[in-house]
């Protein structure tokens, strides 16, 4: 299945990506970053809006630009690109609020069958990782590209 997504730009290392969301509130620059987390192959995934006036990056803002599915598909595309370069990476992701985390979960649920074919997907409970199950609430998610 081909999802509509925005054109991605990235730095040399394929760790920071940039794209332009175009929706009901105009054009909004978004940045996606995969940051190393102390140990080899552990990364955090986060994304947010770039304030056109201050240049600050904000991952807590609710943009509501009417293109959330296209934004999500673009973030997923960035994950594929990143994993192509770092195939052993474990990627952690969580929302800046419980509501945002729930939104991510809804996105995973919607495309779970497609995602599961390409990625190992786990959810974080209080005390462990468990294989992601649709409909269950998680604090965070961690994924790794499946070996072909």
């Amino acid at each position, binding site marked *: 299945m081909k999802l509509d997504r925005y054109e*991605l730009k990235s730095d040399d290392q394929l760790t920071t990506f940039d794209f332009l969301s175009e929706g009901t509130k105009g054009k909004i620059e978004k940045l996606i970053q995969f940051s190393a987390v102390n140990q080899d192959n552990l990364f*955090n995934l986060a994304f947010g809006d770039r304030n056109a006036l201050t240049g600050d990056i904000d991952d807590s803002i609710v943009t509501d630009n009417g293109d959330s599915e296209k934004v999500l598909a673009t973030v997923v595309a960035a994950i594929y690109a990143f994993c192509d370069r770092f195939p052993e990476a474990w990627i952690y992701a969580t929302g800046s609020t419980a509501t945002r985390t729930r939104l991510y979960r809804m996105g995973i649920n919607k495309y779970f069958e497609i995602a599961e074919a390409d990625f190992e997907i*786990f959810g974080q409970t209080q005390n462990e990782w468990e294989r992601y199950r649709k409909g269950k609430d998680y604090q965070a998610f961690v994924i790794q590209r499946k070996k072909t």
Partner: protein
Amino acid sequence: MKSILELNDKKVPVVRVDKSLNKYSGVVLFPEKVEKARQAFEKLGVPELKKHSH
């Protein structure tokens, strides 16, 4: 040779390198999220694929 449209249909997208983004190399844009990730990996490690195999 594959056309750009064919390439864009692939799951791994065509990504244009923009050297202006290199300014973010080594800069953590979302430090609170990275700290959460660090704590989670420190507490739980990484998932064991064998233990969790289908």
